[in-house]
């Protein structure tokens, strides 16, 4: 895997100052959200801004653009080379001439960031027309198509005519990038530009951004919570916490010699390959013992990995708890008319696998590959079109709702969104005990309450939380409540649909550790869906790789990683950015002169 950052021919930062931010503070009346941020960016420099959710990353970048939301006030100074104006407090008319021309921005959610009613090409052309960097409308369109080509859209002329909804997420983000780069700005701000994208697509977009800025010598301020991405993209890193920059330094320094406890915590929690003495992931709390990756250690580890892969892991030969045979699920949709032909979507095609009792199966695959559909069928929330699914002795296919009650005592599900999976209007007690309120169960209210208390304790929450409402909890705590709900009726199987992908890295490790513990403790069979290979690798012993509704590869986690067979799996493995690998790559570059 070649990282473009190590590509030869890169111009080192010239040292000339491009952007300086001094004493930037942002707040509402009497309430400071971002405090005293100072940094400078040299021409062509690439700075990463990391920190957990709500730390003020986005506010900082919007303040630089002069686009703070109404009601927020900024103080301090932001200046861009070539312009006298301090962006803070400058009239909008002044900033308007700079925005889009000398500095541009790519936002996180490409679907909502593009006008849904305007063709992609026109949106790209608009930025040029606005700043009159092209002579005519026709030229703008020609240039727009050229820009779309330069961001490697397959058929740029066609793409220019498309509306945003006709493009995939990755394509939309390319359009955003084409737009941002159209006037060749000296500064590009990217606010989590790839979090909404698939791993493989993310990788392509990141490479594209990197390539583009390097080619043009554009300064880049890159916001992300993903440390691996920063390591890949940036030369310098700013770490933000609670509205302040707590640490700043070159990528190598920050990642291998973090000074601030918060940085270390972040780093430790992000590193899913490092475990403490008990084999558990590091959390922010336990990060003191964490040792950042070094070249030597990495080499050893690589060797060890190869060894594990070679040595066949103990085959789990228990009886199958889940047995899926020739599963098909076809959705008919888009039938806008009673006469029109319905379009068919094959969400699942001939899927067959088994999970033995106590097995931990990871399911990975790109967005839309059918992962969620598979889980929904397992949980009896959706019906297969064809094939058979037996879970803990219950046939799911063709079962009536009443027959599924038994199944659901045996199998429970945990969802992705920690907020959306809890009814905001119910107390924790009611949420957690809900699965007990089914025909056939006879617990009294007092018994249910007792069970809830025990369950909450098992997931690390106290009995005092029973009477609270979901919004009074953090994301990680909410996910614990979801887990408590899933486990209260002691199921044998737990299926989880991306349970940690909406969580901050700092809590992700906690939840993963908890899951691992509970699986052990309750002897659960686990089916775990994730797009994050590292997570699956940490938690699961087997993995199936899905693509377009089909299983393209199946095997032991380690061997699939070490030696992917199917081209898609290979691409997937290659695309996932791994903190260690990235840091090591940086270090190698940095250490080269020695």
């Amino acid at each position, binding site marked *: 895997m070649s990282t473009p950052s190590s590509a030869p021919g890169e111009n080192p930062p010239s040292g000339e100052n491009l952007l300086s931010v001094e004493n930037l503070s942002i707040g509402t009346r009497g309430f400071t959200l971002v405090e005293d941020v100072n940094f400078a960016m040299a021409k062509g420099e690439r700075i990463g801004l990391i920190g957990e959710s709500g730390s003020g990353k986005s506010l900082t970048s919007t303040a630089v*653009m002069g*686009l703070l939301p*109404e009601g927020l006030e900024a103080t301090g100074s932001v200046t861009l080379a070539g312009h006298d104006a301090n962006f803070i407090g400058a009239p*909008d*008319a002044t900033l*308007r*001439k*700079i*925005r*889009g*021309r000398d500095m*541009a*921005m790519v*936002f996180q*959610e490409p679907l*909502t*960031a*593009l*006008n*849904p*009613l*305007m063709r992609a090409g026109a949106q790209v052309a*608009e*930025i040029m027309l*606005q*700043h009159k960097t092209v002579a005519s409308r026709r030229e703008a369109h020609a240039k727009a198509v050229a820009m779309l080509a330069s961001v490697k859209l397959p058929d740029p002329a066609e793409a220019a005519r498309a*509306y945003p*909804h*006709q493009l995939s997420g990755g394509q939309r983000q390319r359009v*955003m990038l084409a*737009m941002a780069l159209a006037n060749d700005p000296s500064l590009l701000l990217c606010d989590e530009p790839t979090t909404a994208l698939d791993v493989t697509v993310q990788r392509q977009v990141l490479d594209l951004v990197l390539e583009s800025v390097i080619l043009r010598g554009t300064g880049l301020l890159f916001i992300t919570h993903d440390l691996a991405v920063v390591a890949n993209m940036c030369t310098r890193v700013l770490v933000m916490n609670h509205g302040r920059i707590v640490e700043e330094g070159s990528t190598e320094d920050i990642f291998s010699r973090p000074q601030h406890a918060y940085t270390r915590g972040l780093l430790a929690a992000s590193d899913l390959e490092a475990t403490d003495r008990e084999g558990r992931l590091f959390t922010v709390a336990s990060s003191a013992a964490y040792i950042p990756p070094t070249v030597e250690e990495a080499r050893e580890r690589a060797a060890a990995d190869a060894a594990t892969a070679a040595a066949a892991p103990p085959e789990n030969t228990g009886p199958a708890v889940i047995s899926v045979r020739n599963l098909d699920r076809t959705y008919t949709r*888009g039938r*806008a*008319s*009673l*006469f*029109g032909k319905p379009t068919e979507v094959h969400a699942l095609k001939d899927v067959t696998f088994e999970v033995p009792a106590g097995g931990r199966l990871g399911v990975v695959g790109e967005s839309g590959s059918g992962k969620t559909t598979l889980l929904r069928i397992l949980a009896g929330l959706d019906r297969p079109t064809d094939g058979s699914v037996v879970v803990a002795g219950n046939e799911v296919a063709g079962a009536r709702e009443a027959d599924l009650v038994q199944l659901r005592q045996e199998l429970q599900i945990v969802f992705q969104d920690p907020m959306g999976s809890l009814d905001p209007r119910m107390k924790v007690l009611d949420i957690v005990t809900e699965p007990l309120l089914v025909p056939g169960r006879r617990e009294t209210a007092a018994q249910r309450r007792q069970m809830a208390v025990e369950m909450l304790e098992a997931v690390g929450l106290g009995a005092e939380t029973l009477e609270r409402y979901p919004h009074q909890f953090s994301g990680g705590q909410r996910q614990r409540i979801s887990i408590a709900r899933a486990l209260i009726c002691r199921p044998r199987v737990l299926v989880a649909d991306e349970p940690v992908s909406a969580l901050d890295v700092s809590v992700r490790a906690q939840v993963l550790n908890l899951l691992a513990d509970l699986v052990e403790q309750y002897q659960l069979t686990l089916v775990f869906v994730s797009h994050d290979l590292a997570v699956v690798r940490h938690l699961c012993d087997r993995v199936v790789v899905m693509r377009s509704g089909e299983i393209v590869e199946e095997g032991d986690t380690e061997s699939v990683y070490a030696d992917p067979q199917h081209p898609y799996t290979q691409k997937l493995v290659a695309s996932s950015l791994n903190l260690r690998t990235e840091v090591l790559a940086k270090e190698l570059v940095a250490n080269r002169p020695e």
Partner: protein
Amino acid sequence: MIPRILNNVLRFVVTFVVATVMVFLLLRAVPGDPAKIALGEHATPELLAQMQREFGTDRPLIVQYFEWAAGLPFGDFGISYVTRSDISPLIADRVQVSLILVVLAMLLALVISIPFGTLAAVRHRRASGAIISAVSQLGIAIPGFLAGIMLVVVFALGLGWFPANGWTPPGRDFADFLSRVTLPVVALASVQSAILTRYVRSAVLEVMSEDYLRTARAKGLSPMKALVKHGLRNAAIPVITVTSVQLAALIIGAVVIEKVFAIPGLGSMLLDSVANRDMLAVQSIVMVLVGITLIINLFVDVLYTVVDPRIRKSA
């Protein structure tokens, strides 16, 4: 697109048929025999029977229904036994009047409410925005007929600028038509524009918080230009929805204004027909209204697809 329209047509037919049955049955429950009314105070059982035979109201319901329903697709509503004349041309005249009134009022309301609603949204933190909002609040709270009466009192009786009431078809004397249509249209539009202003405002406010507007600003567009170029068309979708719903409701809802301005519209025809127990006419008016409502829906649906490419795709 074509299947989408076909589908709408199918729905149209289903809704229409359901409505015919509902309306027919409901109106059979109406007390007050049209024969009795025609005979008035001196009815005798023999005369009544004779009249009912003449009207055909003594036949089985199902026969009456099918006879009536069979003509509907051809716009043939039959001959009213109360007025003894063909219903269709009568309704056609009235519908024309109502549509002119309502469409003009809606257009005027849109012309007023789009700029004001937008302004109210853009300036929502400033006094001017608050004033527009307050005025529109007040506008909604004033019953339409009161607005009509006040207009008559001030502009017709007081200043004498316009005739107080009455109607002239545009084809006969256009200048007179204009002078007569002005006040009722303004009365209708004043209330409608207040309603629409609020919808425009909220739609624009919503759009203003959209990401793509931020993108447009990031391109260097001024807030106003960003809103006009990127926001308004997006805001149009909810506004189209309300406009269509209001348009349909107003065709009968304008009856109070018709009454104030003595305009022979569909609403007043409905009132008269009900009073005369002209069941066929009532049925037919209601069906025309259902038809118009559904056609408006159809039209709006097409409009959506023009405005919104996302809908075009899903067809």
